[in-house]
């Protein structure tokens, strides 16, 4: 029983949290790809930027001396999401819109997103340096423990308060996104444009508005995902790059252009990474009698250092076996 609880604490909780973060990032990537047809390489940096904005706001709020029942990071999140969405709109206007107006190929937009990556990274490092920061410098990280003696365990099921809030928030956001895409006029216009931009335009859809809404959603979700990751682990400028590849893997596994695919892909990648570095010896120990060989500790599928590689191996396999993703996605 204890082994199962350990598995729950280590894999289910971590996997769900990581999956949530990847899903929120991948939705943005996939929406931008669906509407504008280019891989937005600066998305990881947008997430980091959002996290830093939330961090600044949280610092400001903490300075006023007010206390809240939830971590300050969550209190300021809505405002940070709005600010990041506005910045995302500004980035589009400053960097991508001029290229689109000139009729540049999507490839040029992809290269432009490298420029955006460099600018955002440069600015973050200019203002915040390269140090590691934490949202929980001034307040404790609440830990929720559920005793399991009732079902015969001696270990507690434990997770942190932010982790619980994150999972709830992700569910809420996913439902909201689903309602937006299926029920609202704008959401339907977005899906139409992702399917066929020219057809959408001739049928009277205001594509400029759709593009703007895409950036707003992508920016807001990026901020949310970035802040959640920073709340769960810690905040560094390198955050961007460590998740960038995983969110792209998630978006591609789900099928580029498919919002639901991106959410599924995010959780798939999150769990795959967690399972791959999980120490299976703990689960196998009770079965020692049945298994013919000696079980040592440290029996993980891949060493922890190669955690990032897991998403790529999945990515490459999916690209080779089913290039359009698990859900049928767009091709450039």
């Amino acid at each position, binding site marked *: 029983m204890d082994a199962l609880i350990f598995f729950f604490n280590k894999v289910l909780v971590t996997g769900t949290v990581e999956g949530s973060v990847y899903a929120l990032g991948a939705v943005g990537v996939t929406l931008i790809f669906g509407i504008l047809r280019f891989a937005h390489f600066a998305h990881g940096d947008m997430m980091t930027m959002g996290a830093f904005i939330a961090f600044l706001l949280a610092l400001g709020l903490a300075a006023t001396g007010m206390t809240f029942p939830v971590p300050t990071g969550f209190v300021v999140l809505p405002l940070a999401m709005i600010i990041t969405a506005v910045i995302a709109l500004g980035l589009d206007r400053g960097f991508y819109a001029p290229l689109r107006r000139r009729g540049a190929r999507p490839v040029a937009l992809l290269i432009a997103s490298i*420029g*955006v990556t460099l600018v955002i990274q*440069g600015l973050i490092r200019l203002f915040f340096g390269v140090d590691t920061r934490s949202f929980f410098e001034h307040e404790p990280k609440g830990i929720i423990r559920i005793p399991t003696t009732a079902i015969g365990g001696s270990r507690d099921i434990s997770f942190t308060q932010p982790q619980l809030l994150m999972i709830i928030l992700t569910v809420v956001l996913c439902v909201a996104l689903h309602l937006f895409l299926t029920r609202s006029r704008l959401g339907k216009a977005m899906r139409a444009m992702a399917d066929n931009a020219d057809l959408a335009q001739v049928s009277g859809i205001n594509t400029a508005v759709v593009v703007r809404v895409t950036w707003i959603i992508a920016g807001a979700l990026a901020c949310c995902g970035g802040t959640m990751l920073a709340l769960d682990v810690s905040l560094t400028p390198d955050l961007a790059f460590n998740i960038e*590849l995983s969110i*792209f893997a998630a978006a591609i596994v789900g099928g580029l252009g498919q919002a639901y695919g991106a959410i599924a892909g995010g959780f798939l990648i999150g769990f795959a990474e967690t399972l791959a570095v999980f120490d299976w010896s703990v689960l196998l120990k009770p079965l020692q009698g049945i298994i013919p060989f000696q079980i040592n500790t440290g029996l993980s599928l891949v060493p922890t250092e190669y955690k990032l590689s897991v998403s790529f191996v999945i*990515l490459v396999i999916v*690209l080779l076996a089913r290039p359009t993703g698990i859900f049928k996605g767009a091709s*450039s």
Partner: protein
Amino acid sequence: MNRVARPLLLYVGLVLLIVAVALLNGAPYASRMLVEAGAYALIVLGLNIQWGYGGLFNFGIMGFMMVGGAAVTFMSYPLNDNFWHSDGPILLGHAIVAAAIGAAIILGAREVHRIGIRGGWRTALITLAWLVGYIIFRSQMDPAVAYVLANGGWVGGLGLPVVWGWAFGGLAAGAIAYVIGRICLGLRSDYLAIATIGISEIIRQLIKNSQWLTRGTLTVSPIKWPTPLPQDYQAMGVDLQSSLLYARGGYFIVVAVIVAVVMFLLARAYHGPWGRMMRAIRDNYIAAGSMGKNVTARQLEIFVLGSVLIGVGGAVLVSFTQIFDPNSYQTINHTFFIWVMIIVGGAGNNWGALFGAIFIYVVWLLSEPVAQALFTTISVWSTQLGWGAIPDIESRSLQMRVFVLGLVITAALRYAPRGLIPERAQTSR
């Protein structure tokens, strides 16, 4: 401005810029800058083959540079007697045999369709074979690695001349590019970019964590030069400044000769039938394919060729700085940096690529002192206004490099989308 005057003017401007740097910071500084810019030129020329000639999105430059760096370290570093006198070589031999057995199992599983096992069962068998092969390999590799780390620390080098190391760097990068290309080149633009960026990250983690082979984060130094070191000149009684200049000058001549030879060969290839075929494939691979060109094979060819140059460039850089530190490799400072060079210089034009490499490297180096001067000035003002000084000016100006790079590539895309020295349209008269 016509075709010749514009590049000529740009190059004259570049020479003046370099002379200005040499006058301001001294000749040894400028000579170091030129050597490194020369190595970057090799890398950019490699990318120019892939992207400029062939239209392949290679975002894995960092990985190939690291392979080159690790290769030159392995070839030219002195022998590690502790390792060779221990059981390490035998254990590693076992691991290689295990890898061969694993590979044989996988290859065997791929052929089961010959004995009538097809479809889903074949896929399942191949997957199982991969798993079994992986377990066999890990069962031999893990103890070997642990043993080598405990006895002797790492494998050490082979003690061969540096130039061999450069060649081996190119060879190793090419071999890896062949494998990657076989797997990934079927992917189009964005997908290829993401796949290669992922592979370069895997290569980085492999090299960083293979402590038994590359010493990982413990770093390896000093790596030899093909030409005499400054210390050698100093031993002959030359003073510090001149010794730096002589030594770096010697190194620069070697690099410049390589760049010149590569440029000459590439120009020949570009204007020959091979270059025309490559451009045809780049501009319309469907049409080229229907004209009987083997698109996949040709793309693999340029992917390998370009990666060889990137590997050599990476090796030249590492042996110049004399230290191989896997931690110093970052996608921003390597892959994206090289992309800025080629976009600003002009993809598809070797003179543009060369210009981009040198110009962007100079901008990269100069943006730090310029930012520092700017911040110091602002700091003085803000202190006078009573707002206080800017803290940590030095570390902040270092970060400005990345920001400036971002602005430069954005401006280039906006105002010179085909680069400063664009590819010339080939027209027949």
